[in-house]
């Protein structure tokens, strides 16, 4: 579809049971494509911030934001402009490292990507890495050859650059 792109939607919602279901349910019911959704506390007590990554053209995005706004527990919704937004994701990667040589190679890669080793066992290393999603993809690609045991990604969270808030 024309103008289709990935959007970063930031929403402030009441931190209440069911609110995630209301939002997620809306996406399935209206056939909107959702790539990821993260929820966590915000700067205000009782209010959570949701970051939704969704694909669609301008018309679909307009519907998504309008329909989100109709949910009573949703306080504010903003489609963040990609150039004026900082976006970060956290990822944990457990790599199979049976030999000393592999181990040191993996540690080197992790260092290049500013990742940290947060757990070690005789057979594995676990890397923690934060950054833009494509940076994480690149690291995963590199260590894939050694054998990845497990990956846990949070999906991106985001906010506007500078003084602006939603």
């Amino acid at each position: 579809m024309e103008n289709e792109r990935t959007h970063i939607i930031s929403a402030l919602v009441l931190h209440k049971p069911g609110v995630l279901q209301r939002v997620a349910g809306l996406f399935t019911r209206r056939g909107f494509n959702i790539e990821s959704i993260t929820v966590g506390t915000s700067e205000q007590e009782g209010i959570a911030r949701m970051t939704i990554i969704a694909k669609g053209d301008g018309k679909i995005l307009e519907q998504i934001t309008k329909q989100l706004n109709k949910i009573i527990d949703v306080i504010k919704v903003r489609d963040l402009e990609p150039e004026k937004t900082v976006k970060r994701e956290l990822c944990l990667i457990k790599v199979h490292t049976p030999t000393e040589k592999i181990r040191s190679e993996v540690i080197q890669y992790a260092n290049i990507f500013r990742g940290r080793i947060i757990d070690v066992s005789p057979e594995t290393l676990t890397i923690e890495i934060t950054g833009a999603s494509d940076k994480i993809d690149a690291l995963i690609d590199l260590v894939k050859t050694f054998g990845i045991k497990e990956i846990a990604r949070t999906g991106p969270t985001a906010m506007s650059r500078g003084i602006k808030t939603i």
Partner: protein
Amino acid sequence: MRGGEALIKSLKDQEVDVVFGYPGGVLLPLYDVIYDSDMRHILVRHEQCAAHAADGYARASGKVGVCIGTSGPGATNLVTGIATAYMDSSPIVAIAGQVATGLIGNDAFQEVDTIGMTMPITKHNFQPMNSQEIPEIIKTAFYIAGTGRPGPVVVDLPKDVQEQELDMDKEVRIDLPGYKPTRKGHPLQIKRAANLIANSKKPVILAGGGVILSGSSEELIKLAGIIDAPVVTSLLGKGSFPEDHPFSLGMLGMHGTKTSNYMVDECDCLIAVGCRFSDRTTGNVAEFAKNAKIIHIDIDPAEIGKNVEVDIPIVGDAKITLSSLIKALNQNNTSGNTDEWMKYVQNFKRSSSPRTSFNDVPLKPQQVIKEIMNATDEETIVTTDVGLNQMWMAHYFKVKHPRTFLSSGGLGTMGFGFPAAMGAKVAKPETDVVAICGDGGFLMVSQDLATIKEYDIPVVICILDNRYLGMVAQWQKLFYEKRLSHTHLGEVPDFVKLAEAFGVSAYRVEKPGEVQETLKNAINSGEPTLIDITIDPEEILPMVPPGCGLTEMVGEYKIEIESADGVPYYREAEERAGD
């Protein structure tokens, strides 16, 4: 005070004087309170009817209707009625029982996830986990249901919460940081709309249910008068503009009048107020009003641009926005602009008014509707069911006042007509209420004949009895080579005997003239009555097939007066251009 008492007290604080309900295990504490309370409770015979009755109550009165059902099957039975109210923006509060808080999630007896189940069909829903929350939740539920774009709200009430003590003296606040409906239209947009209207030569107004919900019929009539524009309505808009007014063209859409469908096709400016451009109203959207600039006024921003691209969107309450628009228009001189168009529209209307008088036996539905119109007065509230009966009413029955034509539009729920009439009669005991039902739809809710008898709710039920699921059979005839798969309803029941089994007076009517007389007598009797009207099963209503533009009607459109001056405007213009 305990939770159950607090619930009833909170309902009374919202000026609720009647609830439609059905008890069950988890509702025992609440019903024990109702036992001593002066809250009027009407025991329906199926929870679906409780929800439809609350909905009919709301549509007839403009107040929030209340229904109650127990947990599990009670709640699932309410669902159809809640979804019906949701699709038509009708304000109801549905109270569902729930298993005790400690059992939730254990698949306890009669447990169902009412909150999850009703999320997509409510404006909002609540589950008090503690009785202290009840007063605030009820107050908030009514506020949400009745304001902005109205809609249903569910309160899922666990059994133990009904029994817990609470302090009723605490202050009750509505705290909704995420809910602030826009009421006033943007002044700049209103100005732009006024300019567009003032410069249009062929305007049409399309009025939807929002005009009725916001009580802005007066403003609508005024607007039509100022700009000299004809008015078409959606199904739910029927009653927003008096249909005996010379400017009224009737309903638009799949089963709309020929005049409405053609005039919207030809207009150069469409002023849509409080409607959502449902596919049943627009036909193929690519073809819809293709010569027009569209102004769309609606209180729900999500409706604007959802189905149809609009040129001037205005988010706001129809009443406030129309008043501002009228003011803005008065500053523009529009007089005379539309004279030629209005003359053309009137001619078109005259030459394509549908024929309504027939002497045939079995009765033609057109004749039946005419007699129903003759037997009722303009204040009478009519409800319809779903199917051909509904579309015949929509097409032929002229509604003059808001809130006197109640029909399930968005969800198209068979079985709506009768219980909605029951609710309307409870809301307006002094007003005559007549339910027009199909034989199929009525049978889905016929058990509630017991309710109207026991509580003496004198509605008159007219069954348009064709022994078919007529609407579906019509589609089969038109689009499936007349293969009438499972749409014949057979010979039973005998509706007269059925009604009599409930102690409800009943009559069978088969000849022209009898409908009017029997209905008039039934209304005057002041007793619940059923009239089984045998109609011609072959009669079909012209329609726009799905996916087609509004002027591509199929089926013979019988017209009242044959006349030669029904030339479409554009053709006339073309001919003139060729001179």
